[in-house]
C-alpha cells in the first residue's frame, strides 16, 4: 500500500462516524414509515496486533458494525479506512483486492461452511480465488494451516458434517487465515460452542492473533470472553458507542452507568462472592424509535434532565478512555456517581 494513512501509520483499521440506517416499510405499497437506526455514528481504530472487543446486548448494532467494516453492507454515512485506504467509497469491483486483507469468522459454524466442499477445499478456496500462488504452494499452505489449528492431514478429506462444532469453528478460522489477512472480524465466534470447547477456540484465536500479528475485532455479548481476548473494549448501546478504553481500565473503573450495570449483571461463578447487583429496569431501547437525548436515559439510575434532551458526545476522560455520558462531562457540572 502506498497511500498515506490519515489516521496514523500503525492503525490497520479506522472507522469514522459510520452510520447504517435500515428503512422500515409497511403496507401494500411498502411505504417507508421509518428507519432502524442500527448504527448511528461509531468511530474507533484497531492497530496491528491488537484485539478490540465490541460488546453490547442483542440489537445494539454490534454485528452491523462488523458487516459495515467488511462492506457486506453499504454504509449510510461515515468512512472505513483499511490500511489507510478509504474503502467505504469503492465500487464492488474496486474493493475486491482489499477483501483479501479482511476476513470474517462467523458465529454459527454449522451454517457458515458449504456442506458440499471438503475441509481441504474450504480452506484452499480463498487462496484459489485470490490466486495466491501455484497449486503446490496452495497445498503447502493449506497443510500448514491445518496443522496450525490442530488437525491431522487426513482431516482435509472430510466434510463439514463430520466435524464437531468446535472443530468446524477451527476450520472457519483456518479459512479466514488462509489469505494472510491483516484484519479479522470475529462475530460471536464461540457463543454457539459448548463451554468445554470454548476455551480451545479462544486460546487458538489468541495464539494465532499474536503469531500472525492480526488486527482482530472480536464481537460478543459475553463480557467474560471479551475480557479474555481483548486489549481494548468498546461498549455499544442502541447504535452508539458509550465507552471505549483498555480492558483493565474498563473493569477497574467503568465510567458509563450502562457499562457498570452490564458488568454487575454477569453471574459470577463463585458462591462466596456476594455481589451488590445493579439491576437496571426496563428493556433495551428500540433502534427504530431511539429515545431522545442519551439513549440510555430511559433505564439509567443517574438520569438528569439534561440527559433527556441532549445527546452526550464521546469524550476523552483520560488518555485512551472515552465515555459518552453527561455525568462525566468535563465542561459541565459533574455530580458524584457514588451518591
Amino acid at each position: 500500500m502506498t497511500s498515506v494513512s490519515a489516521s496514523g501509520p500503525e492503525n490497520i483499521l479506522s472507522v469514522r462516524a459510520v452510520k447504517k440506517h435500515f428503512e422500515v416499510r409497511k403496507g401494500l405499497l411498502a411505504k417507508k414509515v421509518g428507519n432502524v437506526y442500527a448504527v448511528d455514528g461509531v468511530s474507533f481504530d484497531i492497530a496491528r496486533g491488537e484485539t478490540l472487543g465490541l460488546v453490547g446486548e442483542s440489537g445494539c448494532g454490534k454485528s452491523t458494525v462488523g458487516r459495515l467494516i467488511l462492506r457486506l453492507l453499504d454504509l449510510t454515512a461515515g468512512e472505513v479506512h483499511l490500511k489507510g485506504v478509504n474503502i467505504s467509497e469503492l465500487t464492488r469491483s474496486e474493493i475486491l483486492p482489499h477483501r483479501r486483507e479482511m476476513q470474517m469468522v462467523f458465529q454459527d459454524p454449522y451454517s457458515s461452511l458449504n456442506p458440499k466442499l471438503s475441509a481441504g477445499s474450504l480452506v484452499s478456496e480463498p487462496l484459489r480465488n485470490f490466486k495466491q500462488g501455484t497449486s503446490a504452494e496452495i497445498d503447502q499452505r493449506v497443510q500448514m494451516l491445518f496443522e496450525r489449528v490442530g488437525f491431522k492431514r487426513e482431516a482435509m478429506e472430510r466434510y463439514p458434517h463430520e466435524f464437531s462444532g468446535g472443530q468446524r469453528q477451527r476450520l472457519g478460522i483456518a479459512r479466514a487465515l488462509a489469505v494472510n489477512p491483516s484484519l479479522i472480524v470475529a462475530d460471536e465466534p464461540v457463543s454457539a460452542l459448548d463451554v468445554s470447547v470454548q476455551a480451545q477456540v479462544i486460546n487458538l484465536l489468541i495464539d494465532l492473533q499474536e503469531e500472525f500479528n492480526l488486527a482482530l475485532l472480536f464481537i460478543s455479548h459475553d463480557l467474560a470472553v471479551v475480557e479474555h481476548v481483548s486489549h481494548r473494549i468498546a461498549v455499544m448501546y442502541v447504535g452508539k458507542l458509550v465507552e471505549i478504553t483498555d480492558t483493565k481500565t474498563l473493569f477497574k473503573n467503568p465510567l458509563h452507568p450502562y457499562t457498570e450495570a452490564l458488568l454487575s449483571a454477569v453471574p459470577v461463578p463463585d458462591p462466596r462472592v456476594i455481589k451488590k447487583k445493579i439491576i437496571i429496569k426496563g428493556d433495551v431501547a428500540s433502534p427504530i424509535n431511539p429515545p431522545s437525548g442519551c439513549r440510555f436515559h430511559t433505564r439509567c439510575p443517574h438520569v438528569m434532565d439534561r440527559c433527556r434532551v441532549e445527546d452526550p458526545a464521546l469524550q476523552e476522560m483520560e488518555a485512551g478512555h472515552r465515555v459518552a455520558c453527561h455525568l462525566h462531562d468535563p465542561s459541565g457540572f459533574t455530580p458524584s456517581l457514588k451518591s
Partner: protein
Amino acid sequence: MENSIAVANRTDSPILQIKDLRTFFDTRDGTVRAVNGLSLELYAGETLCIVGESGCGKSVTAMTILGLLPKPPARIESGEILFEGADLLKLDERDMRAIRGNDISMIFQEPMTSLNPVLTIGRQISEVISLHQGVSDRAARARAIEMLDRVRVPDPHQRVNEYPHQLSGGMRQRAMIAMALSCNPKILIADEPSTALDVTIQAQILDLMRELRDDFGTSIILITHDLGVVAEMGERVLVMYAGGKVEEASVEELFHYPLHPYSEGLMTSIPRLNESLAGDGDRVRLQEIPGMVPSLIEKIPGCLFAPRCSYASEKCEAESPQLAEHRKQHYAACWESSNFAQRMESPTS
C-alpha cells in the same frame, strides 16, 4: 450459607425422587443413551441445579419428568420417577395432564417458541388456571392479571390482551413464569430460563425467580450450562456428563472442592470476569478440556470422560466408576475422587 447446612442435616423425605432413570432414543444410527442411569432427589423449597453441556441429558431428564417426549423415538428403558407416592412413568396421559402445569410446571429457554403466537398472553395464562382450578373465565382472567403484576410486567391490564410478538424477550419470559406459577406448583422446572436473554435482562429474571421461590416456596429444578447462574441460584448441584451424573454436592462444596475431573475442568476452563485486574494487563490463557463430548450411541466400557481426562489410568478405560460419597454429602463418580478428597483434607502435602 445456611442453606448448605440445612441440606447436610436433611431428614425429611424428598418431594421428587428419580431412581435409575434411563431414557433412550431409537434412531437410524442406533440407540442414543440420552439419560443413562440417573438418580436424584429434590426436597421441598430447594433449588437444585443440573449443569452440563449440550447433549449431556439435562433437558431430556426434564422432559421425561413431565412426560413430554414423543414415544417413539423416545423410550423409557428403566427407572422410576416418584412424586407424592406415585410413579409418574406409570401414569396415563389423563392423570399426567392433571399434574402438568398444576403440581409440576416448566419454563423453557425460548419464550417465543413456547408461547402460542395466535393467542393473547392473558388467554394462555387463564387457560391453565381454568383447566386446573375449574374457576370461571372472569376469575381466571383476574388471576392472570394478578400473576402478570406479580412477575412485574408493567401495565398488566393492557398486556393481558397482547400477543407474544408484541412483547420483548424479557417480558415473554416473565409471562411464561407467570403462567408456570399461576397454579402454585410444588415443583418448577426451569430449562435454561435466562440463556436466550441479554445479560441485563437475565439479571432481572434471575432476581425475579429468587424472589418468587422465597414467596411461593416452590422447589425448583434449574437446568443450565452457566456456572455463574449455578453459583447465584443453586443450593445443590448435579453435574451431568454424557447422560449420567458425575458429581453431586452443595453449591459451595462443588465450587471449592470439585472431586470429578470434569467438574474441575469446567471450573477452570470458563473465562471469569475481572481476571484482567489480577495480572499485569496481559491476557490470561484458559485451561482447556481436550477433545469433545463422546457419542452416546457407542458403548464405551469405562468412564465416559476418560478420553478427555488428564488423570485417566488403564482402570478408567476398562471399568466404569460408580457414584460414591467422598466427602460429607458430596458424591462423585471417579476412581480418583477419594485421592482428590484426601488431598483436600490435608492441603499441606
